[in-house]
């Protein structure tokens, strides 16, 4: 007899399923109450005695992503081995990244506001002073290198970055929508309109293409020399993530980590804090070839579809000279629509590609841009809104 919310189930099996669902939630697999009811309905249809069948049934209902299968397997073994001990044993089940405790939203701004109420008047005075910032100071801030900024200047720049937005739509998709200036005939609406005039076609309705923003994938190098630039670029990515749905962010040092989910938090400080907590090798050395290989193998097919633009932020200084670097860059270049390499070393006016790693990577890149100051980020926004250039290796000297 199917179970629904009006006749709640009782009995040992029902208790076990509910308890198991709670265990899965604690382990990081989201399980809703609807799924629990489905599980109980499903268990009525199979042989409860067969462990393999129960496993397959519960997996089909509770697991919706392949990554959760391993956690599910361990949780199942623990739970259905000894019901009393599972609560203690559950601690040994590894948590997926997004289920780890989020850092509390203790941003500096909140702390300041709460701790020193007398500072508020001073703060408003400070704001007035900022408004009177002269034009030449603003220009200086545009050109100043991120690594040489004071904390106050970094805060100013962070605020400016938070205002930045990418252009809305660059990609022509294959879908059409009613558009008075379109080029394609919309037979259906034309015909319907003609019925109002007794079958005579007077108004011709047209269809135009829908434009969508291209997905953006950012690969950021977090080795020691890059950390300042990476941090501010993360602020930029956080700012554009609100308006744009398909932004994926990966950090790599010695390993590649997907931090897209961590970066989605509304508060930028919290987003960056949860980013740093999910990456273990912050500011160590870099293994670019290995990280690109991991990206190409595991993530490229999932995030680079539909005309993605890849932003690679790295200084190109590979820790171990690796022959695979050229191969992986070539593969990355072929898998995406546009590969833009942002290198803070371009802040040096007389930059020449001498390092082995940089020479290997440069031929496979569509654009080579600086990333060391505010005007370079604005330049990037302009480049992204311009149509795709068909020539390669546009080396932009430091602005």
């Amino acid at each position, binding site marked *: 007899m199917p179970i629904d919310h009006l006749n709640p189930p009782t009995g040992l099996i029902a208790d076990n399923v509910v308890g198991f669902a709670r265990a899965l939630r604690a382990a990081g697999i989201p399980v809703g109450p609807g799924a629990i009811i489905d599980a109980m309905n499903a268990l009525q249809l*199979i042989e409860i005695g067969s462990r393999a069948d129960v496993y*397959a049934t519960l997996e089909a209902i509770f697991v919706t992503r392949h990554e959760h299968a391993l956690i599910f397997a361990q949780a199942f073994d623990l739970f259905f081995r000894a019901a009393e001990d599972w609560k203690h044993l559950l601690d040994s089940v590894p948590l997926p990244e997004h289920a780890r405790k989020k850092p509390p939203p203790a941003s500096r701004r909140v702390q300041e506001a709460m701790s020193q109420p007398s500072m508020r008047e001073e703060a408003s005075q400070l704001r007035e002073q900022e408004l009177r910032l002269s034009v030449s100071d603003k220009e200086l801030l545009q050109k100043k290198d991120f690594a040489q900024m004071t904390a106050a200047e970094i805060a100013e720049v962070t605020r400016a970055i938070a205002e930045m937005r990418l252009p809305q739509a660059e990609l022509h998709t294959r879908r059409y929508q009613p558009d008075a200036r379109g080029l394609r005939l919309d037979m*259906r609406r034309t015909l319907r309109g003609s019925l109002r005039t007794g079958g005579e076609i007077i108004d011709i309705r047209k269809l135009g293409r829908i434009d969508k923003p291209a997905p953006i994938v950012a690969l950021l190098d977090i080795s020691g020399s890059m950390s300042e630039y990476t941090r501010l670029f993360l602020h930029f990515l956080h700012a554009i993530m609100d308006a744009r749905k398909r932004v994926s962010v990966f950090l790599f040092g010695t390993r590649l980590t997907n931090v897209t989910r961590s970066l989605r938090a509304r508060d930028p400080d919290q987003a960056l804090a949860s980013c740093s907590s999910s990456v273990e090798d912050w500011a160590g050395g870099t293994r670019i070839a290995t990280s690109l290989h991991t990206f190409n193998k595991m993530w490229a097919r999932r995030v680079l*579809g539909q005309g993605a633009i890849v932003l690679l932020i790295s200084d190109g200084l590979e820790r171990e000279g690796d022959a695979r670097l050229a191969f992986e860059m070539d593969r990355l270049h072929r898998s995406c629509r546009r590969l833009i390499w942002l290198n803070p070393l371009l802040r040096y006016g007389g930059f020449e590609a001498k390092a082995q790693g940089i020479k290997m990577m440069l031929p496979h890149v569509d654009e080579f841009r600086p990333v060391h100051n505010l005007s370079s980020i604005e330049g990037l926004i302009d480049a992204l809104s311009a149509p795709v250039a068909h020539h390669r290796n546009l080396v932009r000297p430091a602005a």
Partner: protein
Amino acid sequence: MSASALPKSVDATLALLTSRGYLAERSLATVTYLSLRMGRPLFLEGEAGVGKTEIAKVLSAALGRKLIRLQCYEGLDVASAVYEWNSAAQMIAIRLSEAAGETDREQLSSDIFAERYLIKRPLLQALEPDVAGPPVLLIDELDRADEAFEAYLLEILSDFQVTIPELGTVKAPAPPIVIITSNRTREIHDALKRRCLYHWVDYPSAERELAIVKTRVPEISAKLSQQVVRFVQALRDQDFYKSPGVAETIDWATALTELDARSLTPQVVGDTLGALLKYQDDITRMQGDTLQKVLKEATSDN
């Protein structure tokens, strides 16, 4: 062929699939059985070539139902997936009724928007009543369609009805058997996955793959089939961009029997490698030493 009833247990489902030459893992048979009994769509995810599409064909043949296939691609919309009006025929009908002197506008509208001018596409076809029982609806490679189509599909899979503004609502008398496949090039939205029963189809074990090869390529010799399976299993351990799937194994086994090969030699493997590996980078890697090593592993007698 008369329609058979739905299988009554997991074992019956397994037997049903095996009788048609589809050797499934017991977990896949369990999920299939649950999907049939609970009336929930089956969502199969996995690498290309592991038998996701094949199971829909096998089920429709085994249960005697019609197979309706919707191949998804980017830009798939209602006109290609659900229905479309035959505008050319409608315009001719308007001209004809004009020539016949018909002037009543209401009459004209109801004549033009009649079922005879409606072109039914797969999703609408699946909702129509069928004497053999509800058909098997295969929605192939859903990850290639975009999110707008997913949202529309979610709506259809919840109610199994479609509203055509000019005609009315079409509701399925019995919900079709729905199988959705995905190659995971894009994450399908959770709402759709939760509606379905999810299963990840993995590469088969060596024993199962051997049984599959023997079933699908009956003329193959025992020795060659063992070598083929060992070779492919060893290939999957290598770090290729695209590992060969079960479909590729069967193709390769067929190719080798066509060439009358008795056992694997470097020559014959080099000639037929295109049946297994489809990327040039992978094929160039599979030369010389690597090839010798894998070949030795596959052909050693133990």
